[in-house]
C-alpha cells in the first residue's frame, strides 16, 4: 500500500504520533491500509467485522481497516471491480454474474454456510411446501424474478400455476395486508420476525432447502489484487482478526446483538429484532464444515450449485466455473476458530 509522506506530517500535527509514541504501538503511518465494503449495513449480520474494528483486533494485526456500509444503488461487486475498495462482501449470484462479464474475482471466505434468503408465506395461506403454491398470488421483488422462475422449475411448478405481482424491495405491507400469500425474496429471519410482530404468523421456506443454496456474504477481491503475495499476507491477517471478532457471536448471539445496538453503528436498529436475528443467523453460519475446518469456510459444492442456478435462471449464458474462483489458502493460513 502506498504511503503518503504528507499524511505523516498531518498525523504528527494532529498528535497521533504523540499518542502512538506513548503507547509504543505502530504509528498511523506504519499500518497497512485495507478498505472493505460490507455485505449490508453494520447490524448483527456484520458483527464480526465491526467488533474486530472497534475492539482493535485489526490494529493488533497492523491493519488500518476502513469498513464501508453497503447501500442500495452502487453495489459491492461494482465497487471492487472499479477499484474503489479492496475487499467486498456480497452474495455469490452477483459475483458469478459479474464474472460472466469478464471480471475476475477471487473468493477467499464465505460467511453463510446456508442460504439465508427465503420465501415467506402467511401461515393462514396454508403454504408449507412449494407444491402448495398452486393457484396462489405471490409477491415477487424485481431482483428476485429470475430466481423465482427457477424456484418454480426446480420444484415442479409452471409459471402459469401461480399469479405474481411485483412488490417493492423492502415491502412487507402487501403480505400483511393479505393481498398476497407469499413473498420472495426475504431474509429468513428479518422480515418474518417483523411480519409476526405486526400480528401475522408466517411460514418460512429457506431457498437453500429447495434447490437454491448459496454462500451469502462471501468475501472477495479482484484477481489482480490477490495475485500479489503481500496482499495475500494482508488478507490472512484480516481474516484472522475477523475470525476472532466472530467468536463472541458464536458463543453468545444475544450479547452480540446487544453490542451492535448499543454501539449505534447504524441508526434504526431494534434490539428485539436484532436478538432474534442473531439467534437464527448463527444456525445459518454453522455447518459440519465449519465445525471441522473453521468458520467462514468455503464449500465448492454449494458454489457449483449456485453457478448452475445462475445459468438456469438466465442471468448468465453459460455455467461459470467457480472452482477456480474459490481459494481456501487464506482460510487455512488464518487459523480460524471452529464452531
Amino acid at each position, binding site marked *: 500500500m502506498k504511503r503518503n509522506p504528507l499524511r505523516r506530517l498531518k498525523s504528527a500535527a494532529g498528535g497521533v504520533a504523540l499518542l502512538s509514541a506513548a503507547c509504543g504501538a505502530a504509528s498511523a503511518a506504519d499500518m497497512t491500509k485495507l478498505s472493505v465494503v460490507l455485505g449490508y449495513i453494520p447490524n448483527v449480520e456484520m458483527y464480526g467485522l465491526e467488533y474486530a474494528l472497534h475492539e482493535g483486533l485489526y490494529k493488533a494485526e497492523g491493519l488500518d481497516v476502513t469498513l464501508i456500509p453497503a447501500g442500495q444503488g452502487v453495489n459491492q461487486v461494482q465497487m471492487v471491480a472499479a477499484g474503489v475498495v479492496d475487499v467486498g462482501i456480497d452474495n455469490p449470484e452477483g459475483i458469478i454474474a459479474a464474472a460472466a462479464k469478464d471480471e475476475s474475482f477471487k473468493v477467499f471466505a464465505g460467511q453463510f454456510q446456508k442460504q439465508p434468503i427465503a420465501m415467506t408465506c402467511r401461515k393462514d395461506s396454508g403454504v408449507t411446501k412449494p407444491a402448495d403454491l398452486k393457484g396462489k398470488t405471490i409477491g415477487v421483488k*424485481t431482483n428476485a424474478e429470475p430466481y423465482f422462475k427457477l424456484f418454480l422449475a426446480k420444484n415442479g411448478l409452471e409459471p402459469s400455476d401461480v399469479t405474481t405481482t411485483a412488490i417493492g424491495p423492502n415491502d412487507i405491507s402487501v403480505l400483511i395486508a393479505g393481498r398476497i400469500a407469499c413473498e420472495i425474496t426475504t431474509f429468513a429471519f428479518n422480515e418474518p420476525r417483523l411480519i409476526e410482530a405486526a400480528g401475522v404468523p408466517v411460514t418460512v421456506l429457506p431457498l437453500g432447502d429447495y434447490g437454491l443454496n448459496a454462500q451469502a456474504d462471501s468475501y472477495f477481491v479482484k484477481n489482480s489484487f490477490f495475485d500479489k503475495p503481500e496482499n495475500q499476507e494482508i488478507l490472512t491477517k484480516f481474516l484472522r482478526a475477523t475470525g476472532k471478532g466472530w467468536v463472541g457471536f458464536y458463543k453468545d448471539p444475544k450479547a452480540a446483538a446487544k453490542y451492535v445496538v448499543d454501539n449505534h453503528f447504524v441508526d434504526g436498529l431494534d434490539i428485539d429484532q436484532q436478538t432474534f436475528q442473531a439467534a437464527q443467523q448463527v444456525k445459518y453460519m454453522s455447518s459440519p464444515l465449519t465445525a471441522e475446518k473453521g468458520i467462514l469456510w468455503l464449500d465448492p459444492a454449494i458454489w457449483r450449485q449456485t453457478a448452475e442456478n445462475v445459468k438456469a435462471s438466465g442471468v448468465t449464458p453459460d455455467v461459470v466455473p467457480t472452482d477456480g474462483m474459490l481459494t481456501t489458502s487464506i482460510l487455512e493460513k488464518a487459523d480460524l476458530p471452529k464452531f
Partner: protein
Amino acid sequence: MRLLRVLGPAAVFLAALTIWQAATAYGWVDRLVLPSPISVARLFWTDPGLLAFNAGVTATEAIVGLVAGNVLGLLLAILFVNSPISRRSVLPVATGAQSIPIAAVTPALIIAFGNGMEPKILVTIFLVFFPMLVNAMRGLRSADAEVGELMHNLSASGFQRLWMVRLPAALPFIFTALKFSACSSFVAAIVAEWVASDRGLGHLIVLASSQYRADQVWAAVLICTASSMALVGLLVLTERRAMPWLRLSERDLA
C-alpha cells in the same frame, strides 16, 4: 446560421461520445457501471422488442401523467388568480404537499392503488403539477398593470381578461413549466417503477443492474433521455407557433 444550429451541438455531442468510448475502452471507468456506447447501440439491434415494450409502458405512464398534471396545474392557477381566498388557503397547502418526498410515499400508493399503471401516473402528476402551478400563476399575474386598467375601463369580463391579456402574458412561463415537466415526467414514471413494477424502463433498469447488464441499463436511460428530448422538441415547435412575437425579438437581439 441554420447550419450552426445543428452542427454546434452535434459536434459537442460527438466529442462527448468519443470520450465515453475511450473511457470504457481504456478502462478509466469500469464496464460493470458504464458500458461502451457501442454495446448500448448494439442492444437496439439485437433486442429491440424488449426495449420497445418497456419503453411503451413507461411512455404511457409518463404522457398521461404529463397531460393530466399540467392541465390540473393550469386550471388551478387560473382558479387561484381569480379567487384570492382559494389561493391563500390552498396554495400554501399545495406547496406543503409538494414537499413530501413522493418516492418515499410511492410504496403506500402502490398498496392503496394496486400495482398497475395508476400509482405511477399519480406520481408523475404529483411531480409535474406544482411547477406548472407556480409558473402559470406567476405568468398570469405578470400581465401589465396598465393593460389591466385598460381592460377594466372597457368593462371587459373576467373571461375576456383571462383570454386576451393574462394567458398570453403567462405563455412564456407556461412553456417553461411544460418543458420542465416534459423532462421530469419520464423520470417520475421510472422512479415509481423502481419501487415496484414488473414492466417498464424503471423495472428494466433495476433488473438489469442486479445482473450487471449495464448495456440494458444505459439503453433504458438513453430511451428515457431521447423521449424527453423529443417531447421538449415538440414543445419548442409549439412554442414558436404560439409566441411569434418572442421569436422576433430574439432574432433581433442577435
